[in-house]
């Protein structure tokens, strides 16, 4: 009786184990996506949190700035020169538009509810080029052009982020449905003006930053603890496989710089 039960038991465990092995996926690493914790993020008050900051730099030969060919609506779109923004390197090799974030934070502060989540279309250019959007928040798309655009987001239907909506020149603002879950970064395009490109990431917690012209980022009010610090860049890829581990002390500040190369 007892042995039977044990065999049964062992079998069941084996089955269970077999089932869980399936769940393993490497998709994010391959596809240049961010890593999101499977656990639900808990919001709490953060007192005396720490700060993580740093500078992201580019290493390698900086390609010449590529001027975009404006083959459509020149009166509206061709007034100022536009350049490819997939790799923007500033003074001292500062790398703009890199997302730096905590991969495994489980609890912490809430999003800044007053922050505007807007994507601007002006002179046929998306601004900003890389943007983070809290899950559950509707993105407002502005049209400051006397031209018709279409906002095409390459997300998924299950997340409500597969979107391609026309925004005619008479519609100054347009809200897009909020994401149901974390995803991205995904591409944003205006097909009517094929050069208009941007990226959005739908994120589950506020510990995400996008580097500025000087390559700087700051994550504030981080609850003390050890974290995996990740980055993502459009052409330099990510560090999903080997994130940097940082230790944040109460009220302390951690400096962490990154140097990125073009992904082969």
């Amino acid at each position, binding site marked *: 009786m*007892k042995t039977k*039960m044990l065999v*049964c*038991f062992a079998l*069941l*465990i084996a*089955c*269970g184990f077999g*089932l869980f092995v399936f769940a393993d996926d490497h998709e994010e690493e391959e596809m240049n996506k961010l890593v999101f914790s499977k656990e639900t993020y808990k919001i709490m008050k953060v007192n005396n949190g720490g700060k993580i900051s740093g500078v992201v730099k580019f290493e390698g030969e900086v390609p010449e700035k590529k001027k975009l*060919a404006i*083959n*459509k609506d020149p009166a509206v779109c061709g007034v100022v020169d536009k350049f490819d923004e997939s790799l923007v390197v500033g003074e001292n090799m500062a790398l703009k538009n890199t997302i730096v974030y905590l991969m495994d934070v489980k609890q912490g502060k809430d999003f800044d509810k007053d922050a505007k989540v807007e994507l601007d279309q002006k002179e046929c250019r998306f601004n900003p080029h890389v943007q983070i959007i809290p899950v559950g928040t*509707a993105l*407002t798309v502005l049209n400051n052009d006397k031209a*018709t655009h*279409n*906002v*095409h987001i*390459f997300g*998924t*239907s*299950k997340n*409500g982020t*597969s*979107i*391609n*909506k*026309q925004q*005619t*020149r*008479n*519609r*100054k*603002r*347009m*809200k*897009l*449905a*909020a994401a149901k879950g974390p995803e991205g970064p995904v591409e944003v395009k205006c*097909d*009517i*003006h*094929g*050069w208009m490109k941007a990226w959005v990431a739908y994120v589950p917690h506020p510990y995400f930053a996008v580097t500025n012209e000087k390559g700087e980022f700051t994550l504030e009010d981080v609850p003390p603890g050890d974290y995996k610090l990740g980055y993502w860049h459009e052409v330099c890829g990510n560090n999903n496989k080997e994130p940097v581990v940082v230790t944040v002390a109460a009220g302390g500040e951690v400096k962490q710089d990154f140097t990125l190369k073009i992904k082969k």
Partner: protein
Amino acid sequence: MRTSIFVLSIIIFLLFSVISISYAQDAPEVSEQGKEVYEESCAHCHGVEGRGDGSAAENLLPRPRDFTRGLYKIRSTESGQLPTDKDLFDIITIGMPGSSMPGWETSLSADDRWEVVSYIKTFYEGFKENETPPKQISLDGKIPYSEESVEIGKFFYTQFACFECHGNAGRGDGTSAPTLQDEWGFKSWPANLTENWNFRGGSSTEDIYKRFIGGIAGSAMPMFEDASFGLSVEQAQRYAQLENKVEMTDAEDEEFNQLDENMGNAYDILDMMTEGIANDEQKQKHAEAMKVFQEKSWHIANYVKSLAPEKRPEPAIGKNVLRSQYTVDTLPTIDDAVWDTLEASYFPLVGQIIVEPRQFNPTIDSVNVKSFYNDTEVAFLFIWDDRTNNTEEQETEDFGKTFVDAIAIQFPVKVPQDPTAPKPYFLWGGKKAVYLWQWKASAVNSVTELTAKGITNAEIQEVQGDIQAESKYTDGQYRLWVKRALKTDDKKDLQIEQGVFVPIAFSVWDGANGDIDTKRVISSWYSFVLEPVPSSRRFIYPPLVALLSLGILVGLRGFVQRRNT
């Protein structure tokens, strides 16, 4: 002790059962039958894992669908939603015209098709996570087809900016057309709305309506939320009228601002609906604006429907054979209105896939031809749609490598007197030579005479005869006018006689689609004939018929008048 182990095992057993069951529910229900059908009939295009990367995929454009992203073009459901099972079943049954996706109505049983539907759904987990059924597009408020509706639809076609991609005349030649791609980064062309038999999802007014209300997922084609939300048809027309005015009076200015404000408010409410924060009054307003939006959309659908003939034209064989019409006058030039009196003969084209390099993804549907002749000459008007006007070979980052657009019209050198006698090989001849007129967009007003004995064996005739040519490119359409003497002195030329059926065939190159040399679209042999000079009887009958009907009318009128008094 024993009991506690027993209880523990039971608990663990239950726990695992629950886990297994919940896993089983999440797990795609793999239909064995569906899998079998899929792997036998679909996998060589769509890939064993549904990634659209089967062995045949590489040569195809559009590519076979990658099922792992859950993006479906032809849906009865709203934008951003998955298709219904019925949508998938229908598309598998009918296929997707204008692409390489075949219909399976005759080669798979209905049961097999349903099973394969559930199998392809397992490639995208979004299907199982969706507990709520996808939202259907409402087809309420359909406006019947009428000239008036078409006219209003034309206005909104411009307002909604469909022309940016589909062009002013709807031939898919909009200024955005050359740069469009699908979400997988492959070139994609906007549909030619005047050839609706090539629509992927059907050509009925309802089909058209669903496509632009719901968008075509994965493609550049967006969904629409009006261009003047909250304004009625008349108000929208007035708004556009005022907007285009160079100078407005104070009253007009005020009127314009009022309309603009109304529109802005309606859009604000629409945004609140998107966010789910509208109150009842706003919901009411939104519902009203939606009604008007639907009305405008039905007008557009009617307009798009009006752009194409009711049916795909019949190919130019049998009773549709190309008949050159006799005229005593000098032959009409390219812009002469008399061409409009003739019905064009329709010559369908297919990709050339016999000789390398091949064209598996043709972009040109057909050539349409009209012809007149007189006692000494014959004139042809060749008409074909091409989304771009490529006049020189180019390589740009945006468009890749493009070549020169061209057409070649092919005749045998010796016309077989008996229509059943063998003709030269249809691909530019073989042992029997063919005679060709070749025209290129790089030299718009000239045609070159060639002789060929095979598709790669053509030479320019040393003596070029006296052939006049003129061509025009407007709104995504080429018109080429060619005039030649019926008879020439050159033995290598075609000699045309009245009443004899002359074989004719075509090759067309779309430079933007990579067409060059053997990569092109072609037709097989058709024929044309100089319609015999009409006998004088023809001119007697019509006046007679007219006189007779007039008599009947007069009689009828008298009859009605008498009855009324």
